[in-house]
């Protein structure tokens, strides 16, 4: 392979004779050459040292004109002014491969006059840029990014995303303070407890109390602010929540401890104050961390829809804004393009991919006067279309708004923790009040009664309760991710354990979604290389299925003298003066080749010089483990429904082979959505398993949407759980893991309730001293964490 050289910019390897030679450097294209020289001139060539030969994508050249980034409408939407009078924009930068790319972009932007701040996040490729608009226009910034070989497009840094980041940061700060203070209080407490048993002078005790009090103050009022806010909103909605219990418990304890410190009589509980807040805060933070961000999904969906189309006006093709196209206009669609508006075909013909509507990858052949629905993709057709609906009424934009709707109205199954903690908090607060009155009227002093009442709240420590769910789900998530199952939000683990209905898509989910050769009939022997080469360059799924089949056995390639693909028929080629024909029955009839073989599977005939040599039967085959999955789910008593956009015959064929009774066929994406909604109305908790664009509505609407990792990008964005290894075994595993996690959560609750059942009566009787309160708090939390860790061992062997 000595004739191959590496491009000096992108490090891709090509044959030497196709490379552009430039002094001692080689480039694969003009783009790479341009970027390389630009970086050299600007003194940024240390980029190549930093990137350390990692392969970059060569810069693309077809960019839309950057000047429309300067339009007022664009500025209104994406550019914000901050308090310093600087303009601010959020960009997504494409083509970032390594940290050196981040370095290069930041460096190049900082070199520009007028750019004040350019920060790029390597993890999500999002950039925030601040600049002075008087000296520099946005288009110049984007041109710069393009000049160094990347592409950038602005996105609306939606309120939700910014909010989520702010919340997370807020928690970091509050946790840092709480953990710092708690750790310091702990070592001061060691002195306190030592003194409790071996004797301590009141003077020293007060000093230690004051030190603890100083540390506990920011914990209660800064870190604990979240609980005060939470209980305020809870009370406003007339709900007694966990926050209220934590807030009242901590505040009462704090006030009491301050009183003790001043009067220099009794024991202060400052350590309990900070420990309660710290533990529950950590639990809350774990929940926030595992929340899914819906806003990003909609961003990527609208990105898939370009905003310009070509229409024919007065006989010439002009670009037009998508929402300015009127009914009756003539739309130009070239091969490979997505149809964005519904219409009727008035010129040209060809195959279309309707998988976004039906889920079937089999191309549909369309001719004059056929209707074409927006969202389908032209495979090989260059056509003219008379538009019948404007964009706002088109099927495609309907799909997007239905999706937004489904995502916003996704049902939320109430979590066990929320329901339990409401009752728990109420009971504890009532018990504490009762204890106070009983002691006060029994008769004891006011101080003593208050102390006992407070010890009830402190000992009924909500720490274990607060940690019960987050710790268990977090461990569940990590086990799942090791098995290639990605849960996007921790709460889905609990929801999935409660599911009673599984809705399955057929094509691409239960089946592989591509035709595979199931029978090969060889009538006469022939050179397989000819057939392999014949099907190699056809994009048709049937050809690809045959190619995969033969390619396993032989290799090699021949060069045809001529090669033509006949739309919706097959392929015609010439080699060494013989005529080679491959295709369907129509293709054979057109070429006067007799064949009588029929089958319910898709057929591919192969002939040389009018002599039929081989017949291949192809069929979409079941995924491995499909039958076992359905059996196991049946055994668990789950209801299983199969939905498909495919015809009745193929739906029934698949359903019978894996024993699914409930089958619905020939459904549109909207029908699937309605089906899921109907199940919800019947009170079912629904899992939808799918893979394609046609499933996204129902995936979004279902309680849990599970997507195959091989599915379309949009489906993966919309889904709640992604099976990265595409295996149906993982689907069952996901179900198992969630059931185990839910059992664990229930165990954790049982443990902390049992624990409370023992300690609360003791506290009410007045037997609790501060040391025991503090120890029990740590002990119960450890118990819950330890119990959760148990499932790790259970799954280690899997």
């Amino acid at each position, binding site marked *: 392979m000595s004739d191959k050289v590496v491009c000096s910019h992108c490090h891709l390897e090509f044959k030497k004779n196709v490379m552009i030679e430039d002094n001692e450097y080689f480039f694969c294209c003009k783009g790479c050459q341009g970027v390389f020289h630009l970086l050299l001139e600007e003194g940024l060539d240390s980029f190549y040292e930093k990137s350390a030969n990692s392969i970059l994508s060569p810069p693309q050249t077809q960019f839309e004109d950057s000047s429309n980034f300067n339009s007022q409408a664009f500025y209104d939407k994406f550019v914000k002014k901050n308090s310093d009078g600087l303009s601010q924009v959020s960009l997504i930068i494409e083509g970032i491969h390594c940290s050196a790319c981040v370095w290069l972009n930041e460096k190049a932007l900082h070199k520009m006059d007028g750019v004040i701040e350019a920060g*790029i996040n390597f*993890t999500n490729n999002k950039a925030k840029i601040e600049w002075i608009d008087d000296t520099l226009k946005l288009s110049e910034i984007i041109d710069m990014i393009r000049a160094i070989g990347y592409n950038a497009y602005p996105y609306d840094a939606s309120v939700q995303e910014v909010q989520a980041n702010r919340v997370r940061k807020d928690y970091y700060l509050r946790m*840092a303070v709480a953990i*710092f203070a708690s750790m310091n209080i702990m070592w001061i407490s060691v002195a306190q407890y030592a003194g409790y048993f071996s004797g301590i002078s009141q003077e020293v005790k007060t000093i230690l109390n004051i030190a603890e009090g100083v540390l506990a103050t920011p914990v209660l009022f800064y870190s604990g602010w979240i609980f005060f806010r939470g209980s305020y909103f809870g009370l406003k909605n007339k709900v007694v929540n966990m926050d209220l219990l934590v807030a009242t418990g901590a505040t009462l304890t704090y006030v009491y401890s301050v009183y003790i410190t001043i009067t220099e009589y009794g024991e202060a509980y400052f350590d309990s104050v900070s420990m309660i807040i710290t533990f529950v805060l950590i639990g809350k933070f774990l929940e926030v961390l595992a929340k899914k961000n819906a806003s990003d999904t909609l961003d990527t969906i609208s990105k898939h829809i370009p905003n310009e189309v070509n229409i024919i006006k007065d006989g010439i093709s002009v670009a037009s804004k998508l929402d300015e196209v009127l009914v009756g206009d003539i739309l130009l669609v070239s091969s490979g393009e997505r149809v964005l508006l519904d219409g009727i075909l008035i010129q040209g013909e060809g195959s279309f991919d309707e998988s976004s509507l039906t889920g079937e990858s089999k191309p549909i052949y369309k001719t004059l006067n056929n209707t074409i629905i927006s969202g389908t993709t032209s495979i090989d057709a260059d056509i003219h279309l008379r538009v019948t609906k404007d964009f706002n009424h088109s099927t495609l934009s309907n799909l997007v708004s239905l999706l937004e709707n489904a995502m916003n109205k996704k049902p939320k199954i109430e979590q066990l923790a929320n329901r339990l903690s409401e009752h728990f908090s109420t009971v504890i607060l009532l018990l504490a009040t009762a204890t106070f009155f009983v002691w006060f009227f029994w008769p004891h002093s006011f101080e003593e009664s208050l102390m006992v009442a407070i010890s009830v709240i402190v000992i009924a420590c909500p720490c274990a309760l607060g940690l019960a769910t987050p710790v268990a789900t977090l461990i569940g998530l990590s086990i799942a991710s090791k098995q290639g199952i990605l849960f996007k939000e921790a709460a889905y683990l609990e929801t999935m354990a409660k599911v009673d209905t599984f809705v399955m898509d057929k094509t691409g989910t239960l089946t592989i979604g591509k035709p595979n050769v199931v029978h090969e009939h060889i009538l006469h022997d022939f050179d397989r290389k000819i057939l392999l080469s014949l099907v190699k360059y056809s994009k048709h799924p049937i050809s690809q299925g045959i190619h995969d089949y033969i390619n396993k056995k032989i290799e090699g390639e021949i060069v045809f003298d001529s090669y033509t693909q006949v739309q919706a028929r097959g392929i015609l080629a010439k080699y060494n003066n013989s005529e080679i024909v491959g295709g369907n029955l129509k293709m054979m009839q057109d070429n006067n080749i007799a064949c009588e073989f029929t089958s319910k599977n898709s057929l591919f005939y192969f002939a040389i010089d009018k002599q039929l040599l081989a017949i291949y039967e192809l069929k979409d085959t079941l995924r491995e483990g499909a039958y076992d999955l359905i059996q196991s789910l049946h055994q668990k008593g789950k209801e299983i429904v199969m939905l498909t956009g495919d015809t009745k015959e193929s739906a029934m064929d698949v359903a019978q082979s894996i024993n699914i009774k409930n089958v619905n066929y020939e459904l549109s994406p909207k029908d699937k959505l309605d089906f899921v909604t109907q199940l919800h109305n019947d009170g079912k908790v629904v899992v939808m398993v799918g893979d394609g664009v046609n499933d996204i509505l129902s995936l979004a609407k279902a309680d849990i949407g599970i997507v195959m990792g091989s599915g379309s990008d949009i489906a993966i964005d919309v889904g709640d759980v992604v099976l990265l290894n595409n295996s149906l075994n993982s689907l069952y595993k996901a179900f198992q893991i969630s059931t185990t996690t839910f059992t664990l959560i229930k165990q954790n609750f049982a443990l902390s309730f049992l624990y409370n059942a023992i300690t609360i009566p003791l506290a009410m009787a007045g037997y609790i001293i501060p040391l025991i309160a503090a120890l029990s708090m740590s002990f119960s939390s450890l118990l819950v964490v330890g119990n959760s860790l148990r499932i790790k061992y259970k799954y280690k062997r899997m």
Partner: protein
Amino acid sequence: MDTWVMTMMLGVSLFMGSLALMAFLWAVKNGQFDDEEKFLNAAKFDNQEDLNDAVDKEKKREKIKKKDYRPE
């Protein structure tokens, strides 16, 4: 006497600890931990040049605040 020593030691150690906490809070607020990849790689690319750039950036920002920033 011994209580005075204890008070002083408690005070000094808590004060020093809180300085470290303050520094950490400042770093979080400043966005230094926002991007873990970049945060870890920063050590690899750190050099004199980048330090100068950071100072230049600060200067640019201050000038803006004084409203006399003139790009040359």
